[in-house]
């Protein structure tokens, strides 16, 4: 299998019917249907997973690791790093200790909670919020699709991104150090596999943003492990030592859970791509300069609504809330001091600049691009304005822009094509009618 992909979804050309459902639901207009198959413009894709979610033919596939023992055997010691989403997938409240123990028994040497990272990042973010070193508002980095969205659509907001790594990376970093010490193993012989509902996180492992190398080695989707874990939960004992994370940290996967754990004085929360776009559009206009913290989730309901989940996100939300109430309300003072010390030592920071990738302008030369904009307006006048996407572009405007760029033709529009055929048919007819030999023989049509 080719692993040199830039983004974490692919199309099964056999299954794809070219229906344009994904085209219309893509927040960055990154998909076009060409020759009957959906194709992605890679530099625009933010890995939000909307296409996977909306494809009625399941032709859009997330690329994750299969749970083959081969991949696990590459490492001397393997750890399953479990998203808190996993705890709310089984339609009833099951203690995390049982679920984590069940995952461990699938063939891992150890399990660790992503939520431990959330506990750590909560402490660090709280310190950051109080340090006033950052520009208001601070935008959370926990959702990798949001980071990419900001790179592509809102480059001016990059300076507002929290400088701190997301919980998933911190958790992996902490567990690698812990096990390396405990088992006396070199860090690179420990394989950390993320059990996740998230396409963007799976992609960020291979193509990390803001860090040189991800601390995670592979990703396995929640869907893929669901049946195996489900068959084990009734017989697996509850190992409480595996589940040390606090309630608020487990709540991070729920939209609003992050700010509930952090409790900043002034904050806004948005989930679902269309809502996030509205919110960031306003933030870009500096309407939230008095807000301390912005929590954004690409998926509706937060990570609980991730594309690779089993449970309906509304049920999962209730289960998550109930679970959070059964867990400790905070971590110990000792742990807090430990994380604070790490924060002050720079442990939590991204080590690479997060660069802007603005949406493609029409041309790299501004003067030329200006000419093309006028051309786009001219082309738009010829298009019906129905945004039907039959041409393979998300809207008439997008088609006009593609035509101006030279990557589409005016007759890709079915209405323009029909008009062209009608006009040429009429022209042909009038030419035939003008022919005196036909009319002389009394064979003139239409009369």
């Amino acid at each position: 299998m080719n692993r040199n992909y830039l983004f974490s979804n692919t199309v099964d050309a056999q299954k794809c019917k070219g229906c344009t459902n994904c085209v219309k639901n893509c927040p960055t207009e990154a998909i076009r249907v060409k020759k009957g198959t959906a194709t992605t413009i890679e530099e625009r894709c933010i890995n939000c997973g909307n296409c996977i979610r909306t494809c009625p033919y399941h032709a859009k596939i997330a690329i994750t690791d299969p749970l083959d023992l081969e991949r696990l055997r590459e490492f001397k010691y393997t750890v399953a790093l479990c998203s808190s989403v996993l705890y709310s997938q089984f339609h009833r409240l099951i203690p995390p200790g049982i679920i984590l123990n069940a995952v461990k028994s699938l063939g891992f040497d150890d399990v660790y909670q992503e939520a431990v990272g959330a506990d750590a990042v909560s402490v660090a973010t709280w310190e950051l919020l109080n340090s006033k070193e950052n520009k208001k508002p601070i935008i959370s980095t926990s959702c990798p699709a949001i980071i990419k969205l900001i790179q592509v659509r809102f480059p001016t907001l990059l300076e507002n991104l929290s400088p701190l790594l997301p919980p998933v990376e911190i958790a992996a970093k902490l567990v690698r150090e812990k096990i390396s010490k405990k088992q006396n193993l070199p860090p690179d012989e420990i394989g950390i596999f993320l059990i996740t509902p998230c396409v963007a996180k799976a992609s960020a492992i291979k193509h990390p943003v803001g860090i040189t190398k991800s601390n995670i080695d592979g990703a396995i989707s929640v869907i893929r492990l669901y049946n195996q874990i489900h068959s084990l939960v009734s017989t697996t004992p509850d190992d409480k030592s595996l589940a040390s994370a606090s309630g608020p940290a487990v709540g991070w996967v729920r939209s609003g859970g992050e700010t509930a754990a952090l409790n900043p004085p002034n904050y806004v929360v948005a989930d679902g791509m269309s809502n996030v776009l509205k919110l960031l559009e306003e933030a870009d206009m500096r309407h939230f300069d008095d807000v301390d913290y912005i929590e954004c989730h690409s998926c509706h309901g937060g990570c609980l609504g991730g594309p690779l989940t089993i449970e309906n996100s509304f049920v999962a939300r209730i289960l998550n809330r109930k679970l959070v109430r059964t867990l400790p309300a905070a971590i110990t003072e000792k742990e807090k001091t430990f994380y604070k010390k790490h924060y002050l030592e720079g442990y939590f920071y991204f080590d690479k600049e997060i660069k802007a990738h603005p949406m493609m302008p029409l041309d790299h030369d501004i003067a030329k691009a200006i000419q093309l904009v006028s051309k786009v307006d001219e082309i738009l006048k010829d298009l019906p304005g129905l945004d039907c996407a039959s041409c393979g572009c998300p809207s008439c405007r997008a088609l006009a822009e593609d035509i101006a760029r030279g990557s589409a033709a005016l007759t890709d529009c079915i209405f323009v094509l029909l008009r062209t055929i009608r006009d040429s048919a009429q022209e042909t007819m009038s030419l035939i009618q003008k022919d005196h030999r036909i009319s002389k023989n009394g064979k003139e049509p239409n009369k």
Partner: protein
Amino acid sequence: MDKKGPKEQLTTSKDINLQYAIKGLDLLAAGEASSNIKHTLQLIGFSPAIIRKAAIAAYEAEMNIVIHGRQGFLKAVINPKRIELIAEDTGPGIHDIDLAMTEGYSTAPDYIREMGFGAGMGLPNIKNCADELTIDSSVGKGTILRIIINNY
């Protein structure tokens, strides 16, 4: 690619003229004109910082017409060197321009302020974003705002 010198190219490219009619108190459509202008600037490929300045200035100018002006239009003239925004309305006009430029000074009615608009930051925000700003206003007749943002 043709090999025209930069000078020649500048003379052949025509300015882009965008014009949008703005209706007073039409809060449903408010923000559409400035959002279109922003999208056009992104297509042209101005730097994100320039786009942000122009988008904020256009938005505030548009909202001023919606809140205070009875009828008007927002115009954008775009060329590689600069972005010019013109907001013209037949609203009440500004009594005291210096006072109107003060942060927090607002003459918006209460119901507009309850909706989160009219915080008295419109003109000061425009001034912060603009390289040049001229206000031509006569009481009872209307206001013409001319904003220039240079591309450097």
